[in-house]
């Protein structure tokens, strides 16, 4: 008898059901009664970071962008296009590849069971031919070109390249035209066999769905071939220094106002996941308190015309990296960088505005409650935290528990001049 383990979150007033299948596949269900649309995500912990791994006893490295290429090819079906199959159910299907995951998902109003069965089926097998692999290259090259025309994408990925020298965070998730053209059918098959295995995967379902029999229905779709697969040994990521590779990088676009991203490299060495989450939330809260819309910094910079409402900041982390990022549009990005560094220096010396910290904590709690209005947000956020090895509900609990001291200590450790890089996209300087 397959059983759910149920936990309740007091802040969101939401529940999550969990079951770990004997194969190692983890299954989650978040009930959302009253909502029309239902969502399912079937994902593997395999993304652009996992290009090197052990295969047939040997360590191999794949061309860049192969996880994303494979995501495209999973949609190949010998009998009928996968998009058509879902459309016939009134459902829509899609997928994404990130640094650490490839996730296939669908949403539907009706016929959820049929859609779920279809999702499980098409991800559990791959249909590659030399011809269909070649054909995909043109499509992917056009996808990469569309990103190259997006200055916001370019300014951000340029920043990662400037900050990181060895870590694959510096590589575009989709690779480049040359690496994509190089990819073969045999390589795609090797990646598929190595990472599309139950113990490396997760299934997350949310919506107005009866959880009875849900597990039985999922199990009925798991194939012998799938259940027999074992995950390849992933090669550990290179050790990355905290010093940035380059302090400045510039790209040229015809943008009316320059775009900038300022990144500061942090570490993610914590004694526990709990400490990691509490620190992350504390840092985010401190940043919003001292640099967000209610801060003196924001007011001064806005009034001087150095930033506009696009200015924002965050602290981002994964299982092998962490960085702060501040970005937006500015007529003078260099001045923003200078003022920001000065303001952080003052903050590290004088300490956190604790009254402001409590105000931002209230805001975070309110915003989290509001976001639980969306079934899509809840389920997709659950997926992305899972892929980082974390639990969304535990993360939310940390919002009420964290203290300003935790984030401040971390900032004192990591916010240093040689950890800072800036990426700018502006119009090409005209020759005098």
């Amino acid at each position, binding site marked *: 008898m397959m059983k759910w383990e149920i936990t309740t979150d*007091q*802040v969101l*007033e939401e529940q999550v059901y969990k079951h770990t299948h004997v194969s190692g596949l983890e299954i989650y269900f978040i009930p959302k*009664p*009253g*909502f*029309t*649309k239902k969502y399912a995500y079937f994902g593997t912990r395999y993304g652009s970071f996992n290009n090197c791994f052990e295969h047939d006893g040997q360590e191999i490295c794949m061309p860049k962008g192969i996880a994303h290429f494979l995501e495209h090819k999973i949609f190949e079906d010998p009998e009928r*296009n996968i*998009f*058509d199959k879902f*459309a*016939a159910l*009134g459902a*829509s299907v899609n997928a994404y590849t990130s640094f650490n995951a490839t996730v296939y998902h669908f949403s539907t*109003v*009706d016929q959820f069971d049929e859609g779920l069965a279809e999702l499980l089926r098409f991800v559990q097998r791959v249909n590659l031919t030399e011809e269909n692999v070649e*054909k995909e290259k*043109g*499509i*992917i090259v*056009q*996808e990469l*070109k*569309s990103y*190259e*025309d*997006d200055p916001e994408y370019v300014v951000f990925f340029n920043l990662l390249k400037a900050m990181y020298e060895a870590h694959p965070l510096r590589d575009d998730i989709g690779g480049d035209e040359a690496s994509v053209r190089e990819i073969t059918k045999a390589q795609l098959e090797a990646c598929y066999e190595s990472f599309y295995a139950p113990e490396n995967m997760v299934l997350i379902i949310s919506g107005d769905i009866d959880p009875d029999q849900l597990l039985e229905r999922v199990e009925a779709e798991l194939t012998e071939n799938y259940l027999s697969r074992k995950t390849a040994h992933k090669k550990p990521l290179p050790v990355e220094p905290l010093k940035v590779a380059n302090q400045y990088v510039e790209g040229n*676009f*015809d*943008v*009316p*106002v320059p*775009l900038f991203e300022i990144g500061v490299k942090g570490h993610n060495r914590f004694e526990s996941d709990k400490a990691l989450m509490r620190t992350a939330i504390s840092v985010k809260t401190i940043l919003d308190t001292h640099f*967000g*819309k*209610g801060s*003196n910094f*924001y*007011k001064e910079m*806005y*009034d001087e*015309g150095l930033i*506009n*409402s696009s200015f924002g900041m965050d602290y981002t982390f994964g299982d092998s990296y962490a960085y702060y990022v501040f970005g937006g*549009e500015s007529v003078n990005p260099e001045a923003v960088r200078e003022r920001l560094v000065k303001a952080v220096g003052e903050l590290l010396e004088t300490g956190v505005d604790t009254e402001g910290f409590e*105000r*931002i904590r*209230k*805001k*975070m*709690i*309110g*915003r989290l*409650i*509001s976001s*639980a*209005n*969306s*079934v899509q947000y809840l389920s997709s956020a659950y997926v992305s935290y899972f892929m980082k090895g974390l639990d969304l509900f535990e993360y939310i609990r940390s919002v009420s528990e964290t203290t300003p001291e935790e984030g401040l200590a971390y900032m004192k450790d990591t916010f240093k001049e040689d950890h800072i890089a800036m990426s700018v996209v502006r119009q090409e300087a005209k020759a005098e």
Partner: protein
Amino acid sequence: MIDALRTSRIAPQVDLHLIKSKKFKTDLISLYLLRPLTMEEATLNALLTRILDRGTANYPDAQVLNRYLDDHYGMALVSDVSKVGERHQIQLKVQFPRSPIIGKNLMADGVALLSEMTYNPLTADGKFQDSIFEMEKRQLKQEIESRINDKTTYAVDRCLELMCDTEPYRFYAYGDVDYLETVTNEQLFEHYQQVIAHSKMDVVAIGDFDFDEVEGLIKEYFSPALNEVIPVPEERVHVPIESLRVVSEPMNVQQGKLVIGYRTYTDRKDPAYYPMQLFCAIFGGMPSSKLFMNLREKESLCYFIGTKIDKLKGIMYVVSGIDFDKYDQANQLIDVEFEQMLAGNFSEEDIDMARKSIVSSLRAISDYPNSFSNFYYNQTMLEDPVDVEHYVRLFESVTKEQIVEAGKRIQKDLIYFLKGSEA
């Protein structure tokens, strides 16, 4: 799931729509002011909405206001404009969570703040504060100029702008930079007073609240004196085409953006409206569409290709990103697929998929408070039924012949290509 609805006229020019849905953890109160779409209106309304949320008489700068919002559990304000068909809308909204862990009902504070933003702006010497006016004017100019950062959206906007070069539809939702330069603070303040006094206003509240409590609050805060309401004309759908126009413009891009504009000559009161929506969906409105299957999946010409239709204006367009040297081939293949549609070369199953896709989107609107609020307002503004199932039935009765017949009305008006600067 929507649990209850109530509409009432609370003042001569103000309608209140209360929508109860227990599943939501927030309450959203939206004020809609309907305006005609002209270049001057778009510019002035856009500038106005950017000033209104910079501070009010009681919260005299953005910092004070933002701290108030944070302190109210991340209460969120929206102050923006949008172009709906050939009309302009000002939207002022407030959203806040409703939860036992907050320990208090934020409704009264939320309604009061929305009213404050609407009726009690920050002024000095009978106009807006000069420093804020000048700052927001500069920021809006940057915002309009930054349109070119999103090349695909920009190409779509340019295509429609050129296609409708004598119709109000051409105006950008945020207005025109040259006109913006000439706007004075006095002029904007006068416009503000005009907007507040002479616009049709609708308040839509959606959440899990007591109807009488909210109606009482809205009546207290939003009951303007009787005034003459500015007329807002309907869209002109039947605009004749003289001949196909072809425009290409150079820009520093890696990939060409192709946009083809069509006129469907079908308004929403026309029986052909429903088959027309289905035609558009089968042609290019979903991943199982003819354009996606052939130009992407079969020919590997592009990563994205799709169609959209403006239901009020009756304009459809195709948009895709392609290599510069694939321009002729892409155009030719799009024409082939269009002709195939007119020849009836699509199946009952294609129709079924398109219908399910549209029906599913319609039914899912009630999952999102903001989408449902906008949907509900637009339906009442147009005096169209608000019951989604009414439309579901109409889509279900459409036949293949009706889709082909609807398609025959469509005329290609303008081909726009954003090409590389070297080309």
